[in-house]
């Protein structure tokens, strides 16, 4: 089964960091990312820009706004997909991600969601 993992972080706190601070954080993240990336079960893993556009149906037309779908302090800053036997295995693998270890003060955390066809 596949699991979608969404890493959330505090967007404004992240944007307030200086270039040097960001580089320092990235260096700390690297070994964690490397551990995650060497896992055979990892299907896909990318970081995201904070620059977001949102599309909605509105009065029968496609309506576009800038900004995220839900305006929250924490936004999705990283996304990865894991192939795992069950949710606990997915959680174990996702726990390798830097957001599970670093950046507590920057509001980071990971949501793990089973990818499941909608079968009513």
């Amino acid at each position: 089964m596949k699991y979608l993992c969404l890493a959330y972080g505090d967007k404004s706190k992240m944007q307030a960091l200086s270039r040097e601070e960001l580089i320092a954080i990235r260096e700390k993240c690297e070994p964690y990312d490397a551990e995650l990336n060497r896992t055979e079960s990892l299907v896909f893993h990318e970081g995201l820009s904070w620059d977001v556009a949102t599309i909605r149906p509105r009065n029968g037309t496609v309506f576009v706004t800038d900004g995220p779908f839900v305006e929250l302090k924490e936004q999705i800053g990283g996304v990865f997909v894991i192939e795992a036997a069950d949710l606990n295995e997915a959680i174990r693998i996702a726990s390798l991600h830097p957001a599970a270890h670093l950046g507590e003060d920057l509001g980071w955390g990971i949501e793990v969601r089973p990818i499941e066809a909608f079968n009513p």
Partner: protein
Amino acid sequence: MIEGTTETGGAGEPFPAVNGAAVPNARQAREAADAVYRTDSRHILATLIRLLGDFDLAEEALSEAFTAAMQKWPRDGVPSNPRAWLVSAGRFKAIDALRRRARFDASVARLAQELEQKGGGEMALPEGSLGPAATDAVEDDRLRLIFACCHPALPPDAQVALTLREVCGLTTEEIARAYLATASSLAQRIVRAKARIREARIPYEVPPLDELPKRLDAVLRVIYLVFNEGYSATSGAWVTRQALSEEAIRMGRLLVELLPEPEAMGLLALMVLHESRRAARTTPEGEIVLLSDQDRSRWDRSLIREGVTLVEQALASRRFGPYCLQAAIAALHAEAPSAEQTDWEQIVGLYDVLARMEPSPVIDLNRAVAVAMRNGPAAGLVLVEEILARGVLFDYQFAHSVLADLCRRVGRKDEARAAYERALALTRQEPEQRFLRRRLAELG
């Protein structure tokens, strides 16, 4: 590839392939690895958990070991002892991972250090361990794991979930379906239980003799809970429920094989005797068939033989307890040609012993049913009314359906109707509800 083992002076090749073994093609090697995975992965995991002292690290090591097998076996041949090869490969992989991570993650540093200190002696499997001794050691690891998962420091519901996942290998999602819980809440329970085992330093061992009876009780309780959830499930999909009973019986057999304590035998006997009736206890449409109405030719004779033999062995030990007695009762039912020709005298006697050993209103109720069979419904009814008057079984559905049945049989129709209605209000299981509605309709 087992990376890192050469740099640290490890053997590199944990177990060399047998000299002269034919190098199989990729497909054959993959099939061999798949076959080992199916039959042995739970055993290998149990050994890795003991060696590494950490569930997650062991699970990761197991998966890496199989990846390594897929890469190496096609090239070098399938090792003569695949299980030992995989344990060894998993251990090397885990130590490598810990060494890498300890450099940047303080939280794994302690574990890494402990593993280093353990060194080769305790960690290594004997070279070329192919004989029955090695197999025993691995089986013992499963037993150690059961005791760790059923440790009293863990909350009871976590014990069940952890045992099902770690010992039986059910997925979080399967356990969630069987217990009508969400996978996420179960996953959390399992993660917390594992953390608790780590923090409380719960050992992976079969408890010493002085602790054994109490600790064994906890293990038997978890196994019986798993069985009952599969046998008379309050909820959940049928297929998963059957799997639960099968897993419970498998664990029961393992326990009896490695730790032939009378109560372990008693529990296994009880489970296989119940299981022997599975095919007869519901109609193809899923309707309940009472014990007295079951087609006894559909009972599984080989399970009954196994159960009866176990009961006899356990009783002969003279150290039997409640599981043995319940199994003895089940054996009398299993050996009777019909409900009428059942040895109710002896069943009542066994309930007497059971009630003295473990006083419980539910046992009293079961005894009352047996008395009703031995001496007639009026005699049973007096006892059931007395038990209900104590108040503790007021919300117990079965107490009201027993009362209803006995009232019906002595012709007290109004009381029977009221009791069936109370039982119906208390039951959530659909087949039970249909059964009670049928009985109500028959009352007219």
